[in-house]
């Protein structure tokens, strides 16, 4: 029991990650805006569907704007709350748009005392049918966006397209980090084996690699599921991180093939340790240099980001890092059981 404190710690951290990662609600946000277009010079009724919102509480404090930029924004003149999750906002849209274009996307901004401010970018397209009138209507500037409420609650950020799947951060992304940590530990064990020549170190390295590879495959599969519902494809084309990962897993599968093809135990340990270290060296550019050079759907490379480091807010960090440690410890636990089985087998065979 004394030496298994880290197993308990790992399970506790994972439990914490599961409980908080799954139960903590998302911040209120705008889920849908219908219709997504309107014609100027009319009064149009726009239905805003919220997510985790409480429209019925302090309903009179809700304000809705259609925002073009910092200068021009049109406030809804009447808001009719249907229930907690939906409201109708009616806009008296002036005949002329405050820009030269006839068609323009407007961002919908909502403010609520209870839920705080939320934004839905490019929510409504306004089309100007009528010809040009000389002056821009003062309606665009009379009610500027001001006094937005900021609510400080422990919540996960609400992001369009991602919605609840932002929680996958604790399961998909942290699996990757755990895999990398396990592989690094396995390389350390390989070094140790080369220095000492003890078969135990080789078995440790093998077990850690096996656990890491399992984590890698799980990361790949979970990533594929997530990608299908975020980017619309299980295997997004030209997605460099995905392809690099597949190559990395191939390298580690080759490691197992190499082990299988060597008979002599002493030789197997040494050669697979050498390959392990060499493969890891080749893996560094694969996982860190190449993805950074090309554009990718993943955050942190090429500009396109679902959430980069600036988006990973503190609430998420508080669950993410424990989750990484938890998954790593779970991997070490799995590896240690495998190691014990290998050691036992060796004991039986050498009897």
């Amino acid at each position, binding site marked *: 029991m004394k030496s298994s404190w880290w197993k308990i710690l790992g399970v506790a951290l994972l439990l914490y990650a599961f409980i908080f990662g*799954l139960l903590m609600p*998302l911040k209120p946000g705008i*889920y849908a805006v219908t219709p997504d277009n309107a014609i100027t010079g009319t009064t149009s009724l726009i239905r805003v569907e919220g*997510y985790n919102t409480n429209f019925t509480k302090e309903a009179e404090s809700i304000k809705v704007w259609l925002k073009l930029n910092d200068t021009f924004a049109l406030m809804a003149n009447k808001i009719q709350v249907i229930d907690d999750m939906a409201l109708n906002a009616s806009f008296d849209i002036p005949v002329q748009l405050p820009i030269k274009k006839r068609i323009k996307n407007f961002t919908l901004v909502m403010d609520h005392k209870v839920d705080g401010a939320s934004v839905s970018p490019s929510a409504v397209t306004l089309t100007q049918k009528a010809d040009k009138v000389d002056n821009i209507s003062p309606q665009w500037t009379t009610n500027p966006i001001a006094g937005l409420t900021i609510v400080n609650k422990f919540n996960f950020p609400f992001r369009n397209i*991602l*919605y*609840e*799947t932002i*929680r*996958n951060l604790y*399961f*998909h992304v942290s*699996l990757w980090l755990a895999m990398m940590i396990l592989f690094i530990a396995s390389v350390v064990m390989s070094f140790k084996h080369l220095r000492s020549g003890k078969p135990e170190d080789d078995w440790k390295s093998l077990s850690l690699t096996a656990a890491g590879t*399992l984590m890698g*495959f*799980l990361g790949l*599969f*979970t990533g594929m*599921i*997530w990608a*299908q*519902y975020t980017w*619309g494809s299980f295997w997004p084309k030209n997605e460099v991180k995905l392809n690099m990962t597949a190559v990395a897993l191939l390298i580690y599968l080759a490691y197992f093939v190499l082990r299988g093809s060597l008979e002599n135990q002493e030789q197997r340990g040494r050669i697979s340790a050498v390959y392990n270290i060499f493969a890891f060296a080749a893996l560094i550019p694969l996982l860190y240099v190449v993805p950074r050079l090309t554009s990718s759907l993943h955050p942190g490379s090429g500009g396109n980001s679902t959430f980069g480091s600036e988006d990973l807010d503190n609430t998420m960090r508080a669950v993410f890092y424990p989750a990484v440690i938890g998954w790593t410890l779970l991997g070490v636990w*799995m590896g240690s*059981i*495998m190691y014990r*089985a290998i050691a*036992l*087998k060796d004991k*039986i065979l050498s*009897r």
Partner: protein
Amino acid sequence: MKKRVLNFLIIMTLFVPSLMAQVERTDFMRSIGKIYVVVAVILTIFTGIILFLIYLDRKISRLEKQIEKNG
């Protein structure tokens, strides 16, 4: 055992295209803020861990048999 695996595979091949065909916003996986995607991810991880357990179980059973035979 083999038959069951075969059945499972057939069911999977029937189901997966129908799952992929649903791309509308209101399908099951996309309902309630896509929470079922998180469920699917967790189930995948669970399956992976169970498969690893089965692998270890078989390995250790073999060892037990060897001990019985030798000991």
